[in-house]
């Protein structure tokens, strides 16, 4: 942040309490017509919380993972519904999952499996936004993604960016996973680019020493003070906040190293697998270890409209083999976090925008089915080894304990110490509750 401010702020939106009071004063004579109120969103102090989870890793299965072929198999159902995959036992007595998730089966004792996710938005875009914000999307107001809310509440963990997105083919850095909605742009995710093994911009350019880099930074601070005639507004404020974040990150060797996968032993990389989702999960672990609060790992390719039984397990199909890659990455992440003593403080969420149609289509695939789906939660204080909710015999609708995206969002936020009942302010000055509906899924903590 290059404009001198009365207080140094460590929040992603650059708002201190003092700024807030100042803005509150302005509001009374009509700031509502400007976008300046974006600032106000964060000013209320984060509530004290006893949440165990400090961080969250969200593995986003983009396209909509098939509940019927992964975590909610229906071996008794007729062939037009039944998965061709076998159900195998897991480390939890009585719980069976897909045969192509054998390593995951071993960690299910740490996992709470929700089989009764349900909503009504069957388009990728709307379904994704509903799941990732907990609000039904409306054109009138864009709600912030969960990661942005966490970033906005907790701000920087030292030099680490609070919210990081590890995208895949541009997905996740773009429209869905990372947006800050009505919160300031600075609460959006740091998009590390397509290759988790090579995060750009963290090293000084060739021929530029640390001292010279610092000198440039000082020159830049002076330069921006010279062009004070460029008015303060959302574009300048967001930009200033990003530059401050960038310099904070660059100043810390530890933080920069967190982004460097080459520092991992080859056995560890092997354990997570060499698929992008594996590298993404490993990078996510490094980032939360270093202090990031919310890391989204996007895995694309789950929109299996055809040949589902060939594409999902078999990596010989181009762009497929989703199950073995995920199995490796997910189980390695849970195990690794446990071994490092990080599982209790890290909530790991595995989900996509919706489930898939119980009836197989003519192409041997399954289409979009928002009315039923599965979600896995582990770590961060979640009581593992349990199944919450159930679908009917064809996996069409929940028959027990339906869970909607607002419930899930409410719960994830609460786990991470964000008060879902808190009120924020939109850029137009409209008071807006973090969550307008939804309730805590008590079973997750064993109640």
């Amino acid at each position: 942040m290059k404009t001198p401010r009365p207080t140094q702020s460590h929040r992603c939106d650059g708002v201190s309490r003092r700024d807030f009071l100042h803005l509150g004063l302005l509001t009374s004579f009509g700031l509502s017509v400007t976008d300046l109120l974006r600032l106000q969103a964060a000013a209320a102090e984060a509530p004290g919380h006893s949440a165990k989870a400090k961080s969250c890793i969200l593995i986003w299965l983009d396209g909509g993972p098939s509940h019927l072929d992964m975590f909610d198999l229906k071996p008794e159902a007729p062939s037009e519904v039944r998965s061709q995959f076998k159900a195998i036992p897991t480390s939890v007595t009585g719980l069976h999952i897909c045969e192509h998730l054998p390593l995951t089966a071993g960690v299910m004792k740490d996992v709470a499996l929700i089989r009764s996710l349900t909503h009504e938005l069957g388009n990728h875009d709307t379904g994704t936004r509903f799941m990732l914000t907990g609000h039904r999307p409306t054109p009138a107001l864009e709600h912030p993604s969960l990661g942005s809310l966490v970033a906005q509440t907790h701000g920087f963990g030292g030099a680490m960016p609070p919210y990081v997105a590890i995208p895949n083919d541009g997905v996740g850095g773009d429209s869905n996973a990372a947006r800050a909605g009505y919160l300031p742009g600075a609460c959006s995710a740091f998009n590390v680019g397509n290759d988790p093994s090579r995060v750009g911009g963290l090293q000084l350019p060739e021929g530029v020493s640390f001292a010279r880099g610092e000198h440039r930074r000082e020159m830049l601070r002076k330069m921006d003070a010279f062009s004070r005639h460029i008015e303060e507004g959302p574009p300048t404020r967001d930009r200033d906040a990003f530059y401050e974040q960038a310099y904070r990150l660059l100043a810390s060797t530890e933080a920069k190293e967190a982004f460097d996968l080459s520092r991992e032993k080859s056995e560890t990389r092997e354990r997570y697998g060499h698929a992008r989702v594996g590298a993404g999960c490993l990078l996510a672990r490094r980032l939360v270890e270093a202090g990031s609060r919310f890391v989204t790992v996007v895995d694309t390719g789950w929109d299996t409209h055809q040949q589902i039984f060939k594409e999902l397990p078999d990596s010989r199909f181009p762009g497929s083999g989703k199950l073995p890659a995920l199995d490796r990455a997910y189980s390695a992440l849970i195990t690794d976090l446990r071994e490092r003593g990080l599982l209790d403080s890290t909530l790991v969420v595995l989900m996509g925008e919706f489930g898939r149609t119980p009836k197989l289509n003519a192409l041997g695939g399954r289409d979009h089915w928002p009315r039923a789906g599965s979600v896995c939660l582990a770590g961060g204080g979640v009581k593992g080894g349990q199944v919450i909710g159930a679908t009917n015999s064809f996996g069409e609708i929940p028959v027990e304990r339906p869970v909607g995206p607002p419930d899930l969002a409410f719960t994830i936020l609460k786990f991470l110490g964000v008060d879902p009942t808190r009120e924020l302010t939109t850029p137009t000055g409209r008071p807006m509750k973090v969550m307008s509906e939804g309730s805590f899924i008590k079973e997750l903590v064993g109640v």
Partner: protein
Amino acid sequence: MLVAGTAVSDATPPPFRTGILPVLTKAGCNAGACHGAATGQGGFKLSLLGYDPEEDFERITRELGSRRVEVAHPEESLVLRKPSGQLEHEGGRKLRRDSNGYALVRDWIAAGAPYGPRDLQVTGISVEPSDNLLHGTNLTKQLRVTASLSDSSRQDVTDLSLYTSNDDAIAEVSKTGEVTTVGRGLTSIMVRYSGQVAAARIAVPLGDAKIGMDDFPARNYIDEHVGRELSRLHVPASPLSDDAEFLRRVHLDVTGRLPTPEATRLFLAEPSSAQKRQRATDELLRSDAFVDFWTMKLADLLLLNGRGDTAAAYHAWLREQVATNAAFDRITRALLTSSGDLARVGSANFMTLASDPRDLSEHAGRIFLGAQIACARCHSHPSDRWTQEDYHRFAAYFARITREGGAVQISTRGEVDHPKTGKPLSPKPLGAPSRPQIGDVDRRVELAGWLTAPDNPLFTRTIVNRVWKHLLGRGLVEPVDDLRPTNPPTHPELLDALAADFVAHDFDLRQLIRTIVSSRTYQLTSRTRGVNRMDSRLYSHAYLKELPAPVFADAVAQVTGVPDLFEGCPEGTRAVQLISPATPSPALDVLGRCLRKRPCDGSAQTGGGLAEALHLINGSTINGKLRGGVIEELKGRSSREIVEELYRRVLTRPPAQDELAEWEPLLASGPDRTEAVQDLLWTLLNSREFALNH
């Protein structure tokens, strides 16, 4: 004549469609979150906001063995007992027993629950006063809504209309249509009744004192409209920009390029005058850079995202249109009616944007009419007047096209069916009567004729509104692809005037830009003045605009004198000239670009944020260009000359005294002069002043 909202036992009971359904809508029964949901609620489904009266009538009177209405004992009807809270109702109490609405429904049931005349419907609504100026907060104003019916009668429907404030930080509205001001500025209240929509504008002056407009003399009609609003809302206008600010802005806006140092020197040397600015503008409008830049803008708008021969043909065709200043209605007609080999007939590529006629009609509606019609695919548009039938009949224009073997061809077969009846629909324009069908000819010709007609208000307005947004930083209607009666412009008369002017000048894009750029409004400084700091929609000062990624990348290449190289493109190709948005460029990815997969309307679909800041600080876009080029060129010049030259190139202005005093010694005294010059150039390129069009 009926007076809704009063429960009089009349000889003729109120008709279901125009008398009863609005009561249920008003009570919220058929809202999206209640029985209006696609799957209904609690086993009872109604059409969203009552768009399908006949089906709703069936559901209410025939389903569930008629327990929903019991003619013999009206008050025992579920349709009354549930919402009035006498029976458990998940939605809570929606219709109090002592309300007029309750009485209306009860009396209607008592009269046998008739549907009433089948063809009687509401044809329009009007709201009064439509324009409200309220001097301060906490003031109230009662709106009145009148419905016009198909039997030529009119009725007051104030109590039965739905009201929504478009900005409830400025004005709130009660269920009965009473507006209360809570903040200052400009907004509107959306009013809905029986599938019809209207809006009332609400203005609350920003400043307390009236201000004179003597320092805002109009240069053309634009300023008259803008000045009137500023005066009405007590907002002072900022002064004119100085020449340097104007020159930089007009170059970036009109050509996406920065002025050359020579152009800057010459322009700033000449005394300031409106004529000088006009001359500079006209030169830009004649330049090749204009053609490149507006070709890109068109390609963004049209989502040109192909590759290879077909994309090249499409791009070349667009460039030709801009270069020859083809009239915008002609360009549009060509896009809507072309057929042939996609690699040869560039304009035919528009038809490949989607293969489903409904998808293509949504694109066409958004691009050329600024209309978001997608809602009406499944149900009547909740905030516009489009019905499902309107939607599908509009889509039917695109039903008879084939796209096989790399060519677009007209077919004699292909239909869009009504989703309910399954019957094929004949094409019909949006919001206009059907046109006579002329045999088996290309349906699209009729569409293009209607769409681009000078009297089609949506077509001209959506084009001028987009150009206005590009130049002024905010559309008269926002979002620019959502023109509807319930989302009124900030300056309705100005939008009308711009549209009329556009038609009068034969849909001439350059003339439109020229007119806007000539106005005082466009030429104001971005520095604020007093209370106008609070303004973000009255154009009291120039609004800051971020440089789009391709413009930013080109500007860095231009001022450093080190061009970019793009894979598969001839040397010297600039970012704005790229044909495919998938042309590999990690720099453009991180700076943010429009991928043209979905509408961008100026905002990028990739990049930005922390990743961009890191890239600008350490990445190759800037650091890779600090050798050779301008650094080499300036070797041997004095420190002062170097500072002045870099400022002129990068910021289009001379350095101020304090800036010179800071940088000159730095260049003169440093151990390594080249490094010092590199650092200054790096600094200028990372500055917020460079990153913004101000």
